[in-house]
Structure formats: structure tokens, C-alpha cells
């Protein structure tokens, strides 16, 4: 099967290179034969890469430990669930996964894009084939071939890192990859539009779903990554500003900026240069994220093993950036705005400031991530840039962005009058002020938490007001009952009201983040029967009583589990069973150092998080860390609401009027001729 896999990779490379050549030349010279050939080359490359994936999965499931990748990431007793996910657990397999998914997305884009964009498709095929060929080249020429064989066959493999043996890690990396990879499609359309000089709003229509899809996958991937870090790593948090985490956030921020600014182009014909730059920038940032993860240039717990692959990505990043922005610069004269800004107090202007903040935060995260390298270059001293730095720089920016999330929808397109502003802001501003007052009276004094929750109140009131007004308008106009009016409001204008649901998720996330300011924790050594207490920010006292330790075998691991009874104000509410896990291979040999498996009791208001550190002198006397994490459940809930809103926005259909409004420049003032 590895022979088949190798052959498939070589075939994919050959047709990929041909597809790139045929696509660019066919698009440039408008030659239908080459255009067709490029299209078929992408399909063929997709087929060949799927065969390569099948060959690797076959080797994984057959425990062919003569294949270096299989021996490095699996063992005979690894559960099937994780044997499948070993495909992308390592550097080499993930490169194959990336190239394959890109070719699948490329094929789908070529099949699903309406005929009116046919002129762009040869170049789209060319870009997809070129990028996928690069990834295949890295595998074949960068010592990253997943089908490489060992000179001997080990009895068993090394097994998968215990921290990757978690359902979150089965779904989190592919989701992030899907997000990163799918950005290539909008990028390919942008390059095609630049080359073809078709720079009206039409190409934006072709990429709308793809940009939303990328953003949705990235959002879900980031949230799943946070969940995995929380339930698996045992440090009691979900975001550590690690370089690889930051790398996933960067394209998400720029894509979010694009999803807002593209509305301005669609409705008002403005920001054409800016939108193109955002798409190109987002794609480059996705490649940058790949470079960070794979180069080892910045130390990160998430990085793959350091290898020469990083140089390939750096070279590709530099060449791609230079080529894209040169083309962009050449086409700048064609990118003039069709209409102009009429007022500083308009939704267009607020979207611009929203973009400024999103890009500002992206720059700040990038700056912090790269600052250790910069410091070494300038001062000759490497510094550590950890959470204190990022929180100090980014929290105020994040709060300003949250404020704009509420302000934007309250301001009318084109120009807003003073009475209109007064009427729009009255309820949300009062709600925000009232929330702040309640928190201050309740004794909350943490500035950032106060601001986050008060601004959350303001934004939530904005969203409720928008839904209420829309439903009332339908009720008055069509006589619909309010629940029906609300449902139809959402159904007929999914983009706008789905967007408000995304905003609701963002508000929930910010409030949940604020909860971590009130995290409390304690360490304790307890003999069976002994207890430790911890006071929650809500005033309850939790008592943790150590009942004892059990040891047993399960699947591919030996478990040491402590049972801890939890009482709230003296009343029993359940048990925590934190574990230490010693993973073993099929022959019963330990494969990794014992890992920590936290126990979590999740409640609406707070999570109780227990970690078994270890035992004292081999007895049942155990070392624990107990943490109370307020509002963590709401992080996951907020993430789900964001994803739900994204799905609603993406869902095909909607009223014809709404579609027309999204496609053209329909915002007109009273008395203005169409």
C-alpha cells in the first residue's frame, strides 16, 4: 500500500503542476481546452490524493509498523477512533491531509460555482493546483513523506501522545485545517479577479459562501481547541496565548474584518481595495500559521517536531506574498470606489472602525508572537512574551471591539440623523448603564470584568431591540403573530439576523471570559477522609473530601483515580474523579510519562475543576489542585451560538428581496432616484 501511496503522491504532483500551468495560461489566453484540462487536473489530483490518504489509513489500521509514520503515532492497542485521527496527528500525515482537503475544496469550487463566473475558474483551478502542488512537494522533497519505511519493523508502535487521545483532538485539528485550507478558495478567486481585471462586486458573490465557510470552520476549530485545552491539559484554563493558538486567531480576525467590510462593498461599492487586501492577507496568515506550527522558529507546546519543512513554508510565504501584492499593486488603479462616504456618522464608517480594531488586534497578536524574535535581532536578548503581555495589550482593544459590536447596528447606512441616533441608542445605552450600576452595587470591582459585562448588556440590548423592532414591523405590516413574525424575520433575512445571533454568541463569550477574573484555586494534600475547602465568588463554600484511590486497567492505559466527594455549603452535590493515566503499548510497556486527567463538575455559574497531582510515598495520601472557574460553561455555549449564527447566515435561500439587497447597492435615501 505504501507503494500505491507513493505513486499517488507523485501522480498528484505531476497533474498538479500541469493543472497550475494549464489554469494560468488557459485563464490568461482564454483557451477553453486548457481551461478544461486545468479543471480535470484538479479532479485528478483530488482522486490521487484520496488514494494516498486511503493508503496511509490502510497502513495505520493494518499496524504496518515498518512505515515510520505508523510506528511513530500509533500502537496495536490504540483505539480505532484515534487510529483514524493519527492521519493528521503528525507533521507528515497532516501535510497529506492538508493537500487532500484543498484538492477536495478546489474540486467543489469548480463544480459548484455558477456559470456566470466561468471566466475566473481556470485561474482558480491554477491557484488551487499550485498551492496543493507545493504541499505535495514538501512531502516528497522535504523529508516529510508519510510513506517512508524503516529499515526494520518494530514489534509495536510508540503510540499516540496521551494528550491527543481526547475526542476534542479528533475534531479540533481537522476543523482548524478546514478553516485554514478553505481560505485558499476565496484567495484563488481574488487572484483570478485581479488577473482577469474583473474587479466589480461579482467575484465577491462567488466567494461569499466560501469566506463564511472558512470563518465558520475556524470559529468551531478555535472553540474546540479551547475546550480540548480545558478538559485535557489540566491547567484549568482554555487560552494561553501560545504562538500556535495565536496563529489560528490571526486569520479568524482578518476574516471577521472581511465579513463586515464586504457588506460595505456590496451595499455601497466602497472598500474594494481593502477587501482584496483582506482576502490576500487572510490567506497569507493561514500559511504563516502553518509555518509557525511546523518550523519550530517560536517555541510552542503545539508545534510539530522541528524540521526543515519550516524553510519550505517560509520561502513559499515570501514568494506568495510578493507575487500577490505585486499583482494587487498593479491593479490598484482599477480599484476605485463607485460611491463615496456621505457622513462620518454612518454604518459604513462604523464598519471601517470595526475593521481598524480587528486588524489592530490581529497586528497586536502578530507583534507579540514575533516580538521574541525581534528582540533577539535588535537587543541580542530573547524575551518571553506570555499571557501578561497579551492581556495587557489586547483586552482594552477587545473591549472597544465589543462596544463597536453594539454601536454598528444602531447607526443607519449612508447617514444617521440626531433624532434617529437618540432613538436607537436610548434603550441599549440605558441597559448597559443599568448593568454597570447593578455590578457596582453588587460589589464587583475588577475594571475589565465590569466593562466586559456592562458592554455585554449594551450589545445584548441592541440585538434584542433589533429583533423586537423587526418583529413588530412584520406584525404591523402583515398581521403576523409575534413568534411567527420573529421566525420569518430570521428566515427572510438570514444574513442580517444570523449575524446578530453571532453577535449574541460573542457577547456570551466576552462575559464568560470576564468570569475568569474571579477564578479561585487551592492545592491540598489529603489522606482518605480529609477535606479541603474553597470559597466561590458567589459566596458558597465548597468542601472536597478525599475518599480514596483506585487503580485499574482500561483500554490502552493503567488508571489511578481518586474519588473526591464535593459538598456545597455542607450539602453533597456529587463526586470528582481526577485521574493519572499511564499509557502502555500492546506489550504492556509504558509509552509516555503518566498524564493528568482533570475531573470537571460543570454548572451554569461555575466549574469545579479537580486535578490529581500525584501521591505521597506510594500511599493513598494524594496531592490535589482544586479550582473554581466561574462561567466557563458559557464559553462553550457562546461558541455554539456563534456557530449556529454562522450556519444561519450561510444557509441557502432567503427572500428574493433580501438576496437582491445583498447583491446590489440598494441603500437609497428618500427622494433619490434608483
Amino acid at each position, binding site marked *: 500500500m505504501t507503494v500505491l501511496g507513493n505513486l499517488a503522491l507523485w501522480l498528484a504532483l505531476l497533474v498538479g503542476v500541469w493543472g497550475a500551468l494549464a489554469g494560468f495560461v488557459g485563464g490568461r489566453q482564454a483557451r477553453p481546452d486548457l481551461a478544461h484540462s486545468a479543471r480535470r487536473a484538479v479532479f485528478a489530483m483530488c482522486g490521487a490524493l484520496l488514494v494516498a490518504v486511503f493508503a496511509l489509513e490502510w497502513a495505520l489500521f493494518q499496524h504496518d509498523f515498518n512505515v515510520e509514520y505508523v510506528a511513530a503515532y500509533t500502537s496495536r492497542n490504540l483505539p480505532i477512533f484515534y487510529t483514524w485521527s493519527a492521519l493528521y496527528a503528525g507533521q507528515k500525515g497532516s501535510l497529506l491531509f492538508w493537500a487532500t482537503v484543498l484538492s477536495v475544496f478546489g474540486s467543489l469550487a469548480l463544480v459548484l460555482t455558477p456559470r456566470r463566473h466561468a471566466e475566473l475558474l481556470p485561474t482558480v483551478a491554477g491557484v488551487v493546483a499550485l498551492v496543493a502542488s507545493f504541499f505535495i512537494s514538501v512531502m516528497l522533497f522535504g523529508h516529510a513523506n508519510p510513506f517512508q519505511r524503516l529499515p526494520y519493523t518494530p514489534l509495536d508502535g510508540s503510540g499516540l501522545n496521551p494528550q491527543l487521545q481526547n475526542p476534542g483532538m479528533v475534531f479540533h485539528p481537522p476543523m482548524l485545517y478546514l478553516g485554514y485550507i478553505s481560505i485558499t478558495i476565496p484567495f484563488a478567486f481574488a487572484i483570478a479577479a485581479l488577473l482577469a481585471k474583473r474587479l466589480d462586486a461579482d467575484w465577491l458573490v462567488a466567494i461569499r459562501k466560501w469566506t463564511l465557510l472558512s470563518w465558520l470552520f475556524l470559529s468551531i476549530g478555535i472553540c474546540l481547541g479551547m475546550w480540548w485545552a480545558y478538559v485535557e491539559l*489540566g*491547567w484549568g484554563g482554555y487560552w494561553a496565548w501560545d504562538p500556535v493558538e495565536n496563529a489560528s486567531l490571526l486569520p479568524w480576525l482578518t476574516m471577521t474584518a472581511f465579513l463586515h467590510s464586504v457588506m460595505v462593498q456590496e451595499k455601497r461599492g466602497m472598500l474594494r481595495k481593502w477587501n482584496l487586501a483582506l482576502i490576500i492577507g487572510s490567506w497569507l496568515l493561514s500559511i504563516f500559521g502553518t509555518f509557525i506550527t511546523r518550523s519550530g522558529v517560536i517555541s510552542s507546546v503545539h508545534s510539530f517536531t522541528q524540521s526543515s519543512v519550516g524553510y519550505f513554508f517560509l520561502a513559499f510565504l515570501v514568494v506568495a506574498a510578493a507575487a500577490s501584492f505585486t499583482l494587487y499593486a498593479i491593479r490598484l488603479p482599477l480599484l476605485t470606489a463607485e460611491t*463615496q*462616504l*456621505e*457622513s462620518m456618522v454612518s454604518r459604513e464608517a462604523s464598519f*471601517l*472602525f470595526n475593521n*481598524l480594531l480587528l486588524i489592530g488586534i490581529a*497586528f*497586536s497578536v502578530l507583534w507579540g508572537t514575533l*516580538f521574541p524574535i525581534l*528582540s533577539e535581532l*535588535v537587543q541580542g*536578548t*530573547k*524575551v*518571553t*512574551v*506570555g*499571557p501578561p*503581555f497579551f492581556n*495587557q*495589550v489586547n483586552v482594552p*482593544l477587545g473591549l472597544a471591539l465589543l462596544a463597536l459590536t453594539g454601536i454598528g447596528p*444602531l447607526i*443607519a447606512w449612508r447617514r*444617521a440623523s440626531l*433624532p*434617529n441616533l437618540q432613538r436607537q441608542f436610548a434603550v441599549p445605552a440605558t441597559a448597559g448603564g443599568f448593568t454597570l450600576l447593578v455590578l457596582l452595587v453588587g460589589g464587583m470591582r475588577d475594571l475589565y470584568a465590569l466593562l466586559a459585562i456592562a458592554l455585554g448588556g449594551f450589545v445584548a440590548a441592541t440585538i434584542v431591540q433589533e429583533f423586537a*423592532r*423587526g418583529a413588530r414591523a412584520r406584525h404591523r405590516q402583515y398581521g403576523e403573530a409575534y413568534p411567527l413574525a420573529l421566525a420569518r424575520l430570521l428566515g427572510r433575512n438570514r444574513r442580517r439576523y444570523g449575524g446578530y445571533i453571532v453577535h449574541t454568541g460573542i457577547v456570551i463569550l466576552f462575559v464568560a471570559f470576564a468570569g475568569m477574573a474571579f477564578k479561585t484555586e487551592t*492545592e491540598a494534600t489529603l*489522606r482518605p477522609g480529609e477535606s479541603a475547602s474553597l470559597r466561590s465568588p458567589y459566596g458558597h463554600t465548597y468542601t472536597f473530601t478525599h*475518599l*480514596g*484511590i*483506585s*487503580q485499574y*486497567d482500561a483500554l490502552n492505559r*493503567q488508571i*489511578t483515580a*481518586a474519588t473526591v466527594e464535593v459538598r456545597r455549603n455542607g450539602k453533597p452535590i456529587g463526586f470528582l474523579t481526577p485521574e*493519572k493515566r*499511564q499509557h502502555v503499548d500492546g506489550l504492556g510497556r509504558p509509552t509516555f510519562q*503518566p498524564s493528568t486527567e482533570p475531573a470537571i463538575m460543570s454548572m451554569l455559574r461555575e466549574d469545579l475543576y479537580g486535578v490529581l*497531582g*500525584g*501521591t505521597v*510515598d*506510594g*500511599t*493513598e*495520601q494524594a*496531592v490535589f489542585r482544586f479550582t473554581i472557574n466561574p462561567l466557563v460553561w458559557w464559553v462553550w455555549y457562546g461558541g455554539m451560538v456563534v456557530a449556529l449564527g454562522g450556519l444561519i447566515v450561510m444557509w441557502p435561500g432567503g427572500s428574493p428581496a433580501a438576496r437582491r439587497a445583498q447583491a446590489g447597492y440598494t441603500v437609497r*435615501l*428618500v*427622494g*433619490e*432616484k434608483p
Partner: protein
Amino acid sequence: MTRRYDATLQVDRRDFLMLGAGAFLSVVASWRRRTQQPDSLPGTGPSGRLWDPARAGRPLPPVTAADNDAAIQAIEKQLHCTCGCNLDVYTCRTTDFTCTVSPAMHQRVLALAQQGQSGRQILDQFVREHGIAILMAPPKRGFNLAGYFTPSLLIVAAGVALTLVLRRWVRAAAPAAGPTPVGAAGATPEEFARLRRELERLPS
């Protein structure tokens, strides 16, 4: 015991009994191991000892009051563990219990605190011993100031520039747009005013 030409074994009585006894003892021994393996119920292990302590990782010392001292934790949250985990010392020592670096750094912090050193002095001592990279965030001096303030300054500068550009756009748009073509639709100014009021009542 001898093997015959037809591959069957010729066993005398003594060998047979010895073989039987050996088999019985091995079954009993393996049965005893199996019954011991899942340990007792929680809290009732033999003498409170674990069946296999090695499975629970390396033994840990009992937690002391100093380990939970908020001042000590605050210092450790500013120190970078050098084991490669990218975490601060406090988080690493209470998370990755296989790490031997963060417990050693914790002991060093405790020792310096017991010598009467303040938090600032302890951090300075670590910087002298390990270099500036031992801090979770660079100190706000020299080139590091650029690290802290460049993003904010650039955003403010970009905000000012954006405001100026927007004002220029608005000024440029005003004469180009010209006066609103009132009456073009055959309505009176009063009717337009009423229409505008009605439209403003609708969600934007």
C-alpha cells in the same frame, strides 16, 4: 521425559505430578495477581498503600502552607518555566506533575522568600541567574517599550488617519452628490418629511 518418534510425550508419574503441581501453582499465582489488580474500594487499600505507585507518577511531597501563599503564587505567575512548556512556574508545577524544573524553581522562590527578599527582589534574582527570558513578560524599559506600545500607538495613529480620510471623503462626496432631488417624485416637502419620519421608525 522423552520424545518418541511419533511426537507424543512419554511421561512418568513423577514428571506428571510435578507438571500438574507447577501448572496449579502458576494458575493460583496468576489468579492472585488478578484479584489484587483492581485494588480495594476507595480508601480501603492495604495499609492505605497503592497497588502500583509507579502508575501514579513520581511521588510528590505534601503541600505546605507556603505553596498556597498568594504572594508566592503571584511571583511564580511572573516566572517562565524553562522546561519548554511555555507556562509560568505556578501553572506548570500544578499542572504538569512530571516536570522537575518548575518544582525546583518553586523551591528556589521559597528559599529566597525565606531569606526575607521581596517579590521584586526575587524576580530580579531570577533575571540575574537566568536572563530576562525568565520573566513571563518583558520589563517595560528600553526596546521592550516598543513591544508594549507599538500596537496601541499604531492603532491610534491609524484611527486618526482614518478619521481624516473619512472627513475628506465626506467633503468630496457633498458637492458631488448635490442637493437631494426634492420633488422629483412629485411629492411635497411635507410628504417627504413625513415619509422620512416613517422610515426612521423602521429598523435600519
